[in-house]
C-alpha cells in the first residue's frame, strides 16, 4: 500500500514539474486581458528601473514581483527577479528565482550561468559556484574571454578561499543594529568613539539633504547620520549643514575622543575633510592638506591615538594597485608632511575602509585581494618591531562572499561594528554589531576501573586550561574637566607626554560644552598627562602602563584650580632617584610646565614642598623631603625663575593625603607640591 501511495505522489510531482513550462505574458497564456495588461505594465516599469543599474534594483523588484504574482512561470521575469534579489535584500531568494529561470528555460539569457555562479557563490555554495563559473567560461568566445576571463578566475579563486575559510567558524554574535539605524537603503561606514557612546554612519536614504539621486548609480546622495547611546539602544539624529550637503557626505573616521570627524566628499575625485566638534556644534569641514588629498580618489581615514598618524585610502599613482592603504605623519610643527604606501598590506586589488584601533598597533581594513572569499573581506594586521604582520582574514561569518566593509573595533576589543549586505539585512548594506566570543574548551567526564580489585572507579580529571583572552594593550582614560570652584565644565588642553623620551605625544581638548575628554593610552609607556587652561593651575597625572597590561578603563574627573593665593597642586610627574634628591630626567616635561606657569604668571610667588610616606624615621623623611623640594627650586632657578619668587619646605611624613597602610596610599603620599603664596 505504502509503495502505491509513494508512486502516486511521485507521479504527481513529476506532472507538476513538467507542467512548469516557460509561460509568456501574452493573450494565448494569460486569458484575463486586464491582468495581462497590468502585468506587462509592471514589467515595463520594472525594466526601466532595472536598466538604470543596481541602485534601482530594489525599486524594479517591487514591479517585477507584482507581475510574477500574475504569472510565476516566466523564465525571463524569474531571471530578472533573481538578479534583483541577489544584489539587494535576499541572496537565497535570488538563487531560487535564477534556478527557476533555468528550469523554465535554460537558454533564457546568455548570462544565466554567470549569475547562477554569482548566486551560489554569494550563498556560500562554493563548489556549485565554481561549476557555473567554469560553464560560463567555456561559453565565452576568445574575445569575450579576454575581457571577462580575469574576473571569472578571480571569482573561482575566491570560492577556493571560501571553501577553506568556511571550515572554521569564528565564534561571534552578529546583530543588525535595528531599524533605529538601518533602512532598506544602503547604511554603512559606521565610525565609533573609543567609548562606544557616539556612532556616525552614512546612509543613502530618501531623507538625505536635498533628497536627490547621484546619476552615476541612481542612489540617493550620501549623508552623515549620528547616533548616541541611549541605554541599550541608539538615539538617531541627522546633522544639518555644515556636516551634510546636498551631495556626497560620508563619515569615514572618528578620532578616539569623538571630537574630530573625518568625512568624505566627492569633490576633486573624492577627498577627505576634517570636522571638529566645538561644544555641541560641528565646525565647517575643511579639506586635509594636499599631501593627503590629491586629484585622485581619497577615502576612508583613521587617526591613531597619538593624533599624529593618519591612515587613509588613495588610488594615487605609485601604489601597489587600485585603492591602497597609505599613512601620513605629522611633523614636529603639527603639519601633515610625510606620506607613504604600506606596501606589505596592499594588493593589486582594492583596499578600503582602514581603521587603526585606539591601541595604535592593530590595523583593520577591507580588501578584495589577499585570501578574500568574495568582494571585500575584512583583514587584520599588527604592527610589531617595525613591521606589519601578514594580513589575517577575520574569517566566516564576519566575512562572507559579499562585501564586508568598514570594520571598527571597540577599545575593549569585545565588540565591533561593520556594514554588510548579508542575511539579516533590512535592505542593501546595513550596520551590524559583532560581539566576539572566546571559544572555550568544554570538559568531558570519564572514569575507569583502573585498580581491578576496587569497585570504585577512578575519575579522569583533566580540565582544559582556560583560553587566554586577548585584550587590546590599551588603557582608556576618560572623564570630565571642571572648574574646581564653580563646577562648570571646561574646555581644557590635555597634553600627553612620553616621560621617558620627554616627548610630547599628543594634544587633545575636552568638549567645550560638557567638559568630556577621552584619551587612549597604548601599553608600554610612562605617560605624563598635563591638563592646562589659561588662568588655572595645570593638573598633572602619571600613568606607568607596562607592555603586557590588559585593557582597562579609568574614569577620572579633573577639577582645575583657578590661580589664586593658597591654591596648591601635586606635581605627579616629578621623579627622584630612590632615596635621593636627584631629579630624574623623566621629570623634564613637568618642570617645563611649571616654568611656563611661572613665566605666564610673573606676579605669583610659590612654595615647593616635599612629602614622604611613613617608612623610615621622621627626621630622615623630613630631611629627604626638604632636599627634594630644594632640588626642584634649584632647577627652577637654573632655568631663569627668580629666587625671590621661590621658597621650599620639607614636611616629611607630616601631611599625608592618603592612608600609609597601603602601597597605593604611600605612593600618593610621596609627592612634590607647589602652592601659591602671593599673587599681585
Amino acid at each position, binding site marked *: 500500500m505504502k509503495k502505491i501511495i509513494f508512486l502516486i505522489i511521485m507521479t504527481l510531482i513529476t506532472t507538476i514539474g513538467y507542467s512548469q513550462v516557460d509561460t509568456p505574458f501574452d493573450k494565448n497564456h494569460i486569458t484575463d486581458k486586464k491582468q495581462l495588461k497590468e502585468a506587462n505594465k509592471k514589467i515595463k516599469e520594472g525594466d526601466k528601473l532595472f536598466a538604470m543599474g543596481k541602485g534601482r534594483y530594489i525599486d524594479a523588484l517591487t514591479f517585477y514581483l507584482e507581475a510574477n504574482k500574475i504569472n510565476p512561470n516566466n523564465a525571463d521575469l524569474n531571471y530578472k527577479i533573481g538578479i534583483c534579489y541577489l544584489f539587494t535584500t535576499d541572496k537565497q531568494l535570488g538563487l531560487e528565482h535564477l534556478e527557476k529561470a533555468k528550469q523554465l528555460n535554460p537558454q533564457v539569457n546568455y548570462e544565466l550561468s554567470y549569475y547562477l555562479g554569482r548566486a551560489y557563490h554569494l550563498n556560500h555554495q562554493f563548489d556549485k559556484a565554481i561549476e557555473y563559473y567554469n560553464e560560463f567560461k567555456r561559453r565565452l568566445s576568445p574575445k569575450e574571454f579576454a575581457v571577462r576571463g580575469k574576473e571569472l578566475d578571480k571569482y573561482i579563486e575566491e570560492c577556493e578561499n571560501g571553501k577553506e575559510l568556511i571550515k572554521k567558524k569564528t565564534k561571534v554574535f552578529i546583530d543588525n543594529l535595528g531599524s533605529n539605524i538601518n533602512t532598506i537603503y544602503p547604511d554603512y561606514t559606521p565610525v565609533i568613539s573609543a567609548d562606544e557612546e557616539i556612532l556616525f554612519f552614512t546612509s543613502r536614504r530618501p531623507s538625505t539633504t536635498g533628497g536627490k539621486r547621484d546619476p552615476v548609480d541612481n542612489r540617493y546622495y550620501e549623508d552623515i547620520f549620528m547616533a548616541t547611546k541611549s541605554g541599550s539602544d541608539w538615539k538617531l539624529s541627522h546633522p544639518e549643514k555644515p556636516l551634510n550637503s546636498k551631495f556626497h557626505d560620508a563619515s569615514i573616521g572618528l578620532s578616539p575622543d569623538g571630537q574630530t570627524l573625518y568625512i568624505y566628499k566627492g569633490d576633486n575625485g573624492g577627498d577627505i575633510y576634517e570636522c571638529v566638534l566645538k561644544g555641541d556644534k560641528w565646525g565647517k569641514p575643511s579639506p586635509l592638506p594636499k599631501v593627503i588629498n590629491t586629484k585622485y580618489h581619497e577615502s576612508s581615514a583613521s587617526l591613531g591615538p597619538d593624533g599624529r598618524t593618519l591612515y587613509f585610502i588613495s588610488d594615487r599613482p605609485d601604489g601597489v594597485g587600485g585603492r591602497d592603504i597609505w599613512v601620513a605623519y605629522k611633523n614636529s610643527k603639527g603639519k601633515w608632511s610625510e606620506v607613504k604606501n604600506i606596501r606589505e598590506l596592499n594588493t593589486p586589488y582594492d583596499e578600503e575602509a582602514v581603521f587603526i584601533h585606539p591601541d595604535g598597533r592593530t590595523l583593520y581594513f577591507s580588501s578584495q585581494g589577499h585570501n578574500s572569499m568574495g568582494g571585500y573581506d575584512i583583514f587584520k594586521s599588527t604592527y610589531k618591531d617595525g613591521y606589519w604582520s601578514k594580513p589575517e582574514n577575520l574569517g566566516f561569518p564576519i566575512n562572507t562572499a559579499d562585501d564586508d566593509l568598514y570594520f571598527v573595533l571597540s577599545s575593549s576589543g569585545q565588540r565591533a561594528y561593520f556594514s554588510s549586505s548579508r542575511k539579516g539585512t533590512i535592505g542593501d548594506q546595513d550596520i551590524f554589531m559583532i560581539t566576539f566570543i572566546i571559544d572555550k574548551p*568544554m*570538559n568531558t567526564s*570519564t*572514569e*575507569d*576501573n583502573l585498580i581491578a580489585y576496587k569497585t570504585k572507579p577512578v575519575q579522569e580529571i583533566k580540565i582544559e586550561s*582556560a583560553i587566554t583572552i586577548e585584550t587590546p594593550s590599551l588603557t582608556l582614560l576618560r572623564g570630565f574637566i571642571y572648574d574646581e570652584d564653580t563646577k562648570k565644565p571646561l574646555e581644557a588642553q590635555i597634553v600627553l607626554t612620553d616621560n621617558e623620551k620627554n616627548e610630547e605625544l599628543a594634544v587633545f581638548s575636552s568638549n567645550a560644552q560638557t567638559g568630556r575628554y577621552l584619551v587612549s593610552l597604548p601599553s608600554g609607556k610612562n605617560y605624563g598627562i598635563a591638563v592646562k587652561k589659561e588662568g588655572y593651575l595645570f593638573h598633572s597625572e602619571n600613568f606607568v602602563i607596562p607592555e603586557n597590561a590588559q585593557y582597562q578603563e579609568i574614569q577620572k574627573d579633573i577639577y582645575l584650580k583657578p590661580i589664586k593665593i593658597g591654591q596648591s597642586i601635586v606635581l605627579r610627574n616629578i621623579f627622584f632617584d630612590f632615596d635621593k634628591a636627584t631629579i630624574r630626567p623623566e621629570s623634564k616635561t613637568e618642570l617645563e610646565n611649571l616654568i611656563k606657569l611661572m613665566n605666564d604668571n610673573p606676579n605669583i610667588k610659590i612654595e615647593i614642598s616635599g612629602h614622604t610616606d611613613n617608612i623610615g624615621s621622621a627626621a630622615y623623611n623630613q630631611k629627604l623631603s626638604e632636599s627634594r623640594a630644594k632640588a626642584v627650586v634649584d632647577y627652577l632657578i637654573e632655568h631663569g625663575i627668580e629666587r625671590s619668587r621661590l621658597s621650599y619646605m620639607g614636611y616629611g611624613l607630616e601631611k599625608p593625603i592618603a592612608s600609609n597602610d597601603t602601597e597605593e596610599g604611600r605612593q600618593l603620599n610621596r609627592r612634590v607640591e607647589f602652592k601659591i603664596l602671593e599673587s599681585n
Partner: protein
Amino acid sequence: MKKIIILSLMTIVLIGVVNAQDTIKIRTGDPQIAEQRYNEGVKLLQNGDVQNAISKFTDAIQLKPDLAKAYYNRGVAKSELGLFDEAITDLDQALKYEANALYYYTRGKIKQDKGDLDGALQDYNVAININKDLPEAYYYRASLYFDKGEYTNAIDDLKQAISKKNSYAYAYNDLGSCYLMLEDYDNAIYYYKQAVGADPKLTLAYNNLGTTYRRMKKYDEAIIEYSKAIDFDPDYVIAINNRGVAKLEKGDIDGAIKDFSEAIRKDANYQYSYNNRGIAKYRIEDYQSALEDFNKAIELDNNYAIAYLNRANTKEMLRDMSGACEDWKKAADLGISSAEIYHKQLCNK
C-alpha cells in the same frame, strides 16, 4: 557494572576463604574438642555461613585460648561482616601466638578496607619480609602505592606479584593502569593485553585498554575495546560513557549522543553522561538542549564543578550572560581556575 561489583565482592570473599586456615587433623584417642569446633567453623565459613562459623571459632578459642588459627579465621569472618575493628583485634591475637606472613598480610588487607592505609602498608611490609612469595601482599601494597601516586613503586610490586603468580590478571591490569598514569601508553597497552590474555572476561581491562587508545587519540581502536567491554557486560555504563567520549573526540557527534543516551537509559543517575551529552549538543549548536543536560547533571551532583563550567559556556551562547557569570563563579568556587579567569574577564563589566 553490576557484574563488576559482584565480581569484586566475590574477590574479597574468595581471598578470605582461600586465606582461611585449613582444618586441623584430629589425632586418634585425643578428644581435641577445640580443634573439632575449629574445623566445624572452617566448613561453615567455606559454605558462607559466616555467623555460625564465628560461633564455632569462639567455642574453639574458649576451649583453647592460644589457638591462633581460630583467631585468624574468626577475624576473616568478622571482616566479611564489615566488623573491621573486631577483626583486627582477632588478627592481633592470632599474631600474638603465631607471627606469620599470612596473618600480617590479612590484617593489612583488613586495615586497607577500613581505610587505615599506613597501618596496612606496615603490615604488608612485614608480611613480605617474612615471606617473599606472597603475591597478594605485593598486589595490595601496589594498590596503596597507586593511590598515593607512587607508580614506579607500584610497578615493582606488581611485577613481583606476577613473578609469583603468572596468571595474575588483576596484577596485569593494574600494571597497565600504572603505565597509563605515567602516560607510557605502549606499556599500558602491553599489560592490559596480558590481563585479558590471563582472563578473557576481565571487562574492566578492555575498558582501560580503550581509554589508553583514546588518550593516544586512536579513536577507532578505543571504540573497538570499549565495545568488547560492553559486549561482555551490556550494563557496563562506564564503558558506554567512555565510548561516547571517544566518539565525541573523533567527531562522531551522533554516535556520541547515542552512547550517552544509552548510558543514561541504563543508569538515570549517571551524571557524567548528562554532562558529556550536553557537550555533544553544544558542539552541534543545540544549546537549549545542552543546557537541559547540564541542568540534570548538576541536579544529580550539585558540586559537579565541570558541569557548572560547561553550563556557563552554554549560557553564554544562549546570551544569558548573568546566568553564565553565576555558573563561572560557582565553578571557580569549586576550584576550577579557568572559570575564575572567564569570570574575571567577562563578568566584571
